[in-house]
C-alpha cells in the first residue's frame, strides 16, 4: 500500500528550524518507553567489578576482600609505629601497602623550609634590642624578613614590650567593636570548628 504523503506547502530543507523540534519529539517518546520494567532492569544490569566473584583461573576457594572506600581505622597501627619486636612488622609486605606512588604525590605546602640555624647570639641580641627600641617599626614579620628566619623564631627569642601589647590589644578591640552579630558568630563558629578537628568530630 502506498503511503499517503501530504506534501507541505514548503519543503523541510528550507525550514531547518523544524528539524531539532522533530528530533526532540522522538526523544520524548523514547523516554516514556524507558520507564518500562524490563528496560529499567536491563539498564541496571551492570557488569560487576572484576574483584567480585571467583575468577576463572582460580578454581579453589578464596577470600574476597573488597572494602568500601573509607578512612582507615586508627586501630590499624602503621607499620612504622609498630615496636621492633612486633610480629606484624614482618607479616606486612609491600603488596599490602600502597607506597608505590608516594613520591609523585603533591605536598600540601609548596616549600618545605629547611632549618638553617644561621643566627648566632649577637643576632639574637640585635633582634631583642630592635624590638624593644621601636616596636611599631620592627614587628615580628619585619624582623623575620630582615634576619631571614620565621616569625615563630622571633616570638621564641623575644617578647614585645607591655606598651606594645597594650596598643595591640586596643587595636584589636577597636576592630572587633565594629563587628556585627553575623560576623562575630561566624568567627566564633570557625573557632569551634577548628577545635573540633582535634577531637576528630
Amino acid at each position, binding site marked *: 500500500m502506498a503511503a499517503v504523503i501530504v506534501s507541505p506547502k514548503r519543503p523541510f530543507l528550507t525550514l531547518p528550524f523544524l528539524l531539532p523540534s522533530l528530533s526532540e519529539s522522538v526523544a520524548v517518546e523514547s523516554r516514556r518507553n524507558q520507564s518500562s520494567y524490563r528496560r529499567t532492569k536491563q539498564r541496571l544490569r551492570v557488569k560487576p567489578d572484576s574483584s567480585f566473584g571467583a575468577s576463572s583461573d582460580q578454581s579453589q576457594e578464596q577470600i574476597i576482600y573488597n572494602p568500601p572506600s573509607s578512612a582507615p581505622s*586508627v586501630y590499624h597501627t*602503621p607499620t612504622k609505629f609498630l*615496636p621492633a619486636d612486633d610480629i606484624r612488622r614482618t607479616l606486612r609486605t609491600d603488596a599490602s601497602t600502597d607506597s608505590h606512588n608516594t613520591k609523585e*604525590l603533591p605536598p*600540601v*605546602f609548596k616549600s618545605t623550609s629547611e632549618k638553617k640555624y644561621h643566627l648566632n647570639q649577637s643576632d639574637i641580641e640585635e633582634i631583642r634590642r630592635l624590638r624593644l627600641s621601636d616596636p611599631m617599626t620592627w614587628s615580628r614579620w619585619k624582623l623575620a624578613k630582615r634576619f631571614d628566619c620565621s616569625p615563630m623564631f622571633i616570638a621564641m627569642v623575644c617578647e614585645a614590650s607591655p606598651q606594645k601589647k597594650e596598643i595591640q590589644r586596643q587595636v584589636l578591640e577597636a576592630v572587633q567593636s565594629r563587628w556585627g552579630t553575623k560576623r562575630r558568630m561566624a568567627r566564633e563558629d570557625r573557632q569551634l570548628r577548628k577545635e573540633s*578537628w582535634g577531637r*576528630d568530630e
Partner: protein
Amino acid sequence: MKRLQLQRWSSSVLSPRVRTGSRLQHHLYTGLRCQSTFSPVPQAENEPLTHEQPPVSPIPSPNSQKSKYTLPSPPVEAARESAKLAALHARLYLPSRLPLETLARSLVDASADPNSNFNNASLATLGHDLLTYYTSEHLICTYPRLPMAVVFAAMYAYVGPKTLAAMTREWGVEHAATPGGEVDPGFLQFKRIDPGTEIGEGQVNGTTRPNDHRRWRVSMSSRVVYDNEFGEPVQDPTKNDGLPRPLPQGVTAEQASANFVRAVMGSIYLHAGRPAAKRFFEQHFLSRHLSLTELFDFSQPARDLSRLCARESFEPPVAKIISETGRKSRHPVFVVGIYSGEDKLGEGAGASLLEARSRAAVAALKGWYLYSPLNVRVPSSTEEESSAPWKPVHVDLGEVIV
C-alpha cells in the same frame, strides 16, 4: 552479580495474609486475657510504691514485728524470704556459693546502717580496689601507649560512679525510700541527702595534696601521685580548710548505687574466689563498649606529631595530597596523608587543606597511641596455679611532651 529482587521482598512483608495472621493472634491473646482468672498486672504498679512507701517485708512474724521497726536495716533472716533478692541473684547469674544474706548486706549502705558488721562499706572497699585493679591492668596492657589523661578518662568510663549507677539501674535494683528493718532486703537502702544540700561536685576543699592552699597548677604527674584512680583530688578528712563543715547526713543515689556494685564485686571475690570475680568483671564491666578513639583531644596535632617523629628518630612528617575534588568550588574535599619517608602515618579528609592536614595528624597520633600488642595477658592472669609464666608486656616511653 544479581540484584535484590525487591518485588519479592515487599510482597512477603506486606502480604495481606501476614497482616490477617497478626490480627488473629491479637484476637487470640485478648481472648486469653479475658478468660484468665488473674487480673492483668499493670506495668507501673509498684512504681509509686517504691517511691512513697516501701512494701513491708512479706514475713509477718508477730513477735518480731515491733523490733523490726527499731532496726536500722533488715534483719539477716529476712534475706531468705525476699523474692526480689532471689530474683536479683538469679538475674545476675551470681555463683551459688554467694549466699543471699551477703547480697542483702551489699544492698545496705553505710548511711543507712552505721554498724560496719551490717553495711556494705568493707565489701565496697574491697570491690573498689578489685575493680580499679582489673580495669587499670586491662587498659595498660592492652593499650600500652595511652596518655595518662586518656587512661584516667577510660578508668572513669569503665568503673566510675556514673557507670556503676547506670549498671545498678540496668540490673533492676530499686531504691528504698527510707531504710529500715521492715523494708524488703531486695531494695537498695541508703539515707538520702536533704533536698537543697549543696553537693560539692568537681571542687574539693581540703585535699591530700601538699601545699593545697597555694592553688598550684595541677600537673598530670602530680595527679598520678596524689589523686585517686580517676585523677580526681581526694578529700582529706583531717583537713577541713578552717571551715566548720558539717558531715553530710546522707549520700546521693549515685554514690549508694556505686557502693552497691562494688560490694557485689567484693562479696563475689570473698565467697566464690578469684576466678569467679574475674569472670564477673569481664562479663559485666569489660563487656561494656567504650570507644577509646573519642577520648582524645589534641590542641596542636601537627606539632605533636613532628615532636613524636623527632623523638623516635623517624623522618620528619610531610603532608601530601592524596586526592581532592572541587578545589575552586564552595564545598571542596581534600584527602591528605601524612608521610614519614615512604610510610603513611595517617590520613584525613577535610574541607580545607589545613583541616585535612590537622585531621590526618590526629589520625596518625591516634594510630601511635592506640597501638595494641597481640596476645595481651594481664598480670592477674598468673595468679592462678598452672598458668603460663609471666612474660613482660610492652612498656612505652610515654606520651609526647612538647
